[in-house]
């Protein structure tokens, strides 16, 4: 398939997912029956995924899906649902569509659906998969392979979560301002988890996982368009775009790991970085700081190299101080120690790192050992540096990163 038809296919598929998600959200928000909404549209969605790449996207995609959904035999749906609920709702939605045929869009309830999927009464590990399935129409097998669990397990978790939404009475609404902070945090966390799963496959050889990063960004854009004044929404989108912009610079031509400081800036995507910077500026206007804005600002400081100036370590250090106070985690603390080493010297960085040593979780955390090895090496403590490299190498799952660490250790011993 040539590039152009590949792009056309991807565009048609994206349009099908967009329309499907809107219809599922509209139906589910009115029935609280997510599985029923999916069932009612399943065949029509499959037909759209198959046909639209060949025929082009119809002028009114939602109306097209509804017309096909209404034509199909609804016996299967009727068996699943109480009475003829699904058919009644399909009729309802179709009537509303016909009344709006003037070209106005179906109301967008996808945000409400996302808040239902990321409700505190839903187990946190299933929130991101649930959003991928309901908003984007991915099947359980695809989601399972991306999140590295068996298809049967993922299928079961999704079915249970949807039953829970209906039976527990989880509402489809955007929470009031008073509780919006926490609840929005859960939605953003699910979107970031989606992106991070895709990001963890840096070479992008695994298509499904690479797509996951793209879908995470797509969901981030969707929420940003529906909540354009929420600074953390903009912050998360900026963070994902900064990371995505560096994708092709993360590996050398031989597939070798390239650390951030040594990446070829010519391989960074300037458009994405510019967009991320603009989002951060917009977010900052609200003067409500948060975790994602801070993390995005760290990324922004790292990309300062692009404009000829060096990496702004003093700014990075300050940002990590702030991050530690709003969203402290071992990961943040390690990065902060590295920033301290860059601004105040390796002994200060190492001291900040040793303070963390009591945290049991870090014993099995590769970046902790790699950071420790790097700082010990700088101080000429070869023996302990080599030991720390060994720990880091033993903990790393990515072969390219392992090769990089082995190379660092070999260089250390040679010198």
């Amino acid at each position: 398939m040539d590039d152009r038809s590949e792009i056309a296919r991807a565009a048609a598929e994206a349009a099908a997912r967009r329309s499907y998600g809107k219809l599922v959200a509209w139906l589910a928000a009115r029935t609280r029956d997510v599985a029923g909404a999916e069932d009612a549209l399943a065949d029509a969605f499959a037909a759209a995924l198959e046909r639209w790449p060949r025929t082009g996207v119809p002028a009114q995609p939602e109306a097209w899906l509804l017309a096909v959904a209404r034509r199909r035999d609804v016996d299967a749906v009727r068996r699943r649902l109480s009475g003829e609920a699904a058919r009644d709702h399909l009729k309802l939605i179709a009537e509303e569509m016909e009344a709006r045929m003037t070209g106005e869009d179906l109301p967008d309830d996808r945000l409400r659906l996302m808040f239902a999927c990321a409700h505190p009464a839903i187990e946190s590990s299933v929130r991101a998969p649930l959003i991928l399935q309901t908003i984007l129409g991915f099947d359980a097998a695809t989601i399972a392979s991306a999140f590295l669990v068996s298809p049967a397990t993922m299928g079961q978790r999704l079915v249970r979560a949807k039953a829970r939404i209906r039976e527990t009475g989880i509402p489809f609404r955007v929470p009031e301002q008073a509780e919006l902070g926490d609840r929005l945090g859960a939605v953003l966390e699910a979107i970031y988890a989606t992106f991070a799963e895709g990001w963890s496959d840096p070479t992008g050889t695994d298509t499904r996982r690479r797509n996951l990063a793209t879908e995470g960004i797509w969901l981030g854009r969707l929420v940003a368009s529906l909540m354009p004044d929420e600074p953390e929404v903009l912050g998360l989108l900026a963070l994902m775009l900064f990371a995505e912009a560096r994708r092709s610079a993360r590996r050398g031509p031989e597939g070798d790991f390239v650390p951030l400081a040594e990446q070829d800036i010519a391989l960074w995507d300037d458009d994405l970085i510019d967009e991320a910077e603009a989002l951060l500026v917009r977010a900052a206007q609200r003067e409500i700081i948060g975790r994602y804005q801070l993390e995005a600002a760290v990324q922004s400081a790292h990309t300062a190299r692009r404009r000829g100036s060096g990496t702004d370590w003093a700014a990075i250090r300050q940002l990590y101080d702030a991050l530690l106070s709003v969203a402290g985690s071992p990961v943040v603390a390690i990065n902060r120690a590295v920033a301290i080493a860059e601004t105040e010297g390796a002994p200060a960085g190492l001291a900040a790192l040793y303070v963390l040593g009591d945290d049991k979780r870090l014993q099995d955390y590769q970046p902790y050992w790699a950071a420790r090895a790097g700082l010990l090496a700088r101080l000429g403590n070869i023996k302990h540096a080599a030991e720390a490299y060994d720990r880091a190498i033993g903990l790393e799952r990515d072969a390219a990163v392992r090769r990089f660490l082995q190379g660092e250790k070999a260089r250390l011993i040679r010198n």
Partner: protein
Amino acid sequence: MRYMLLIYNDETAMANAPKEQTQQVLAAYGAYTEALHKSGAWLAGERLRPTQATTSVRLAGGKTNVLDGPYADTKEQLAGFYMIEAADIDTAIEWAARCPAASTGTVELRPIWEMAEYIAAE
């Protein structure tokens, strides 16, 4: 939707509490019940006698087994219940959080399985 609020407390601690504290707890429950009534959410609610007054019954081989004591020994014991009407789980969670038991023990929220729903599903 109808929701059941099942109240779990450490009944020994409750029994050993000073009289003054017990009266405060009772007053808190009184105010809470009053608030439920006023909002129209209240459907039912009672306090249960402690597990020392509990009897468990099971039929085995045609014989009725009667055991003194609760079905399961737990750290906190079922101490009472409310049944409320709420639009959704968020409203029910708000009521559960206001219940005095939420700060002394646990409030378990269970939606009522309406007969109309499981009969229609058959």
